[in-house]
């Protein structure tokens, strides 16, 4: 930097910050609801909570929809939100960024964690770090294929999804690992009382504090406050321009996948703890973890084309889905309950997307 000198000084008078929208408060609010996903999600959450609480008061539910239950349901939010954040990172990186392999990484890294902590007796924190690193390694493979070789992300991660999934199953001849140390791990996903104010509040699953909250804060800081965050948004918005601006495009994109892998590694630990066993199909059974994570990211307002997306959107989307699903289970008896969860998720996704899609056009005049 020796050859260049900054030419810019602080401006003499800071210009007053102009308001971004005109009009009275009411119409401004309406506009925010219609065009901003975060506001829409917040309102939907309130609607869901109020609806179920009213139903509860009217005795339409099979059990109280109370803060304790909502807090207990949060245990599902941990892996879902964390993987949603992993998807946020890769989708932000643009060029069709997506990671179908996160669930398979959860499976594989979980088995690796099972070996290290459950079989070989490594200290917990070393095993956690090693698992995260292993996840990062898997992510690095994705990143290498996408960023350095030029594979479309969907294809590269589809391929590694198949590969990791298969490896996770053969690594321990399709047996789960559930030795006593692993079984005892469940304690880290139990619910705890918050200190000081905890008496007034329901107990919250520990994983929220030990893993989810730190991840949320770190990802938020990285995106909003660091130079890496800037680079990521830049390459996601226009990677040709990013190259001309002298940004390390490949390196930045590579790291997005690597970080997503690392988060998946952490989720592997969460999942092993939550299920008290390292299961070879932990992240791919049923519809797997990747598709719900992408769904959460998309519902949270992440633009699939890259460059647009916020951590708060992902978190709110997770809360919405988790609390909605928890309520539905109390509102319907029998098999209908789980079936209506599908309906609700579908309706919320389509509705939120359409609303934003249509109104964005309305307000920006694009055709």
């Amino acid at each position: 930097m020796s050859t260049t000198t900054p030419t810019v000084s602080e401006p003499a008078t800071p210009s007053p910050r102009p308001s971004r929208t005109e009009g009275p408060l009411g119409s401004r609010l309406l506009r925010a609801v219609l065009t901003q996903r975060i506001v829409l999600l917040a309102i939907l959450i309130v609607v869901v909570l109020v609806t179920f609480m009213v139903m509860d008061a009217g005795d339409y539910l099979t059990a109280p929809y109370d803060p304790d239950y909502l807090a207990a349901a949060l245990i599902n939010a941990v892996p879902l939100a964390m993987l949603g954040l992993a998807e946020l990172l890769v989708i932000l990186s643009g060029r069709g960024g997506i990671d179908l392999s996160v669930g398979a990484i959860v499976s594989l890294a979980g088995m690796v964690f099972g070996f290290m902590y459950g079989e070989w007796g490594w200290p917990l924190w070393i095993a956690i770090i090693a698992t995260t690193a292993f996840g990062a390694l898997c992510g690095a493979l994705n990143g290498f294929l996408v960023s350095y070789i030029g594979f479309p992300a969907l294809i590269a991660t589809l391929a590694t999804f198949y590969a990791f999934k298969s490896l996770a199953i053969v690594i321990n001849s399709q047996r789960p690992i559930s030795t006593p140390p692993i079984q005892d791990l469940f304690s880290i996903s139990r619910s705890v009382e918050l200190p000081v104010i905890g008496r007034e509040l329901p107990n919250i699953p520990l994983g929220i504090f030990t893993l989810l909250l730190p991840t949320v804060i770190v990802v938020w800081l990285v995106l909003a406050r660091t130079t890496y965050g800037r680079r990521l948004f830049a390459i996601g918005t226009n990677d040709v321009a990013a190259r001309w601006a002298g940004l390390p495009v490949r390196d930045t994109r590579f790291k997005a996948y690597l970080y997503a892998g690392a988060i998946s590694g952490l989720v592997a630990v969460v999942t092993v703890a939550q299920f008290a066993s390292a299961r070879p199909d932990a992240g791919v059974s049923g519809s797997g973890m990747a598709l719900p994570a992408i769904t959460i990211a998309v519902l949270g307002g992440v633009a699939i084309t890259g460059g647009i997306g916020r951590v708060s959107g992902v978190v709110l989307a997770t809360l919405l889905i988790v609390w909605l699903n928890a309520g539905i289970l109390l509102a319907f008896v029998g098999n209908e309950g789980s079936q209506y969860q599908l309906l609700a998720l579908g309706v919320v996704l389509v509705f939120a997307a359409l609303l934003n899609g249509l109104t964005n056009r309305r307000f920006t005049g694009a055709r």
Partner: protein
Amino acid sequence: SKKNEDAAGGGATSAASSAASSAATSGGGSSSEKVKVAFVPKLQGVPYFEAMNTGGQEAAAALGNVEWLYQGPTQADAAAQADIVRSFIQQQVDTLIVAPNDPDSMAPLLQQAKDAGIHVATSDTDAPTSVREVFVNQASAQGIGEGLTDALLDAMGGSGKYAIVSCGQTAENLNSWIEVQKAYTAEQYPDAEIVDIVYAGEDQARATQQATDLMNAHPDLTGLVGECTSSAPGVAQAVRDAGRIGQVFTVGLGTPQSMKPYLADGSSSASILWDVENLGYLTAWAGAQLAQDQSFEATNDVSDTLDAVEYDDATKTLLLGPALAITAENVDQFSY
């Protein structure tokens, strides 16, 4: 829980007296006079668990004082199952019975349920490390594994190569049956050999395809086992498609109605199962017993058809009875 203490005053083992005891409890609406027994299957919508549901409902009707709750996930997935278990804990049911997708992961949840004052039990699949008070077992792993092996080798003439098309790679009870089959085959049928074990997931078409591949890979293969309710018809279909009925024999754990066409044309020699509705009945009955703090006798008179159900106090297991071979002759006795 409060409700259980109230119910604890009840008397003998019979249904009539437990009804009397719950009638004696003080309570609000009519529903709270009944004990709530909840059952969470591995997966909803499959005939096996829906038949258990039918049996459970019959039991509830017969016992009179039981409210039978049944809710299953749409995917055979431990996480989805955990949500439902949690919602039943929230509902403060009296007994919670689970057929866990993943026994290890169910253990801590059952602990939570117990801490909330709920009686816990397992049925169909056990969670041996958990705090469950009883496991309602359909048949012993030994019984199923040996039943399958005997039925297949009976058809194969006591010798030859066979392969197994299993389902979920991680399904604990399927894997335990396979272990029994391996050991029992080696011991009892020295001229027989298991050449391959493949996993088709819950996908019938995949099971069919894999069975076909196996027959191609091993032209001298004479037997196939479909280890679960989706691969049992799958392997039979493969034999039918290959036109090798009578050359390659199949057995499996198929539900009666789904196996009927294959039993009829001989592409399946037998289906090893048990009376699933009775299993549901027994499950509901056991749940009611627990809810009322009744203990199990060494042999229990549950209903007309289940008049001598054995209880093993050491393993805390109720055993429905021996495995049942379903064949072309008796298949029509089952409606599911």
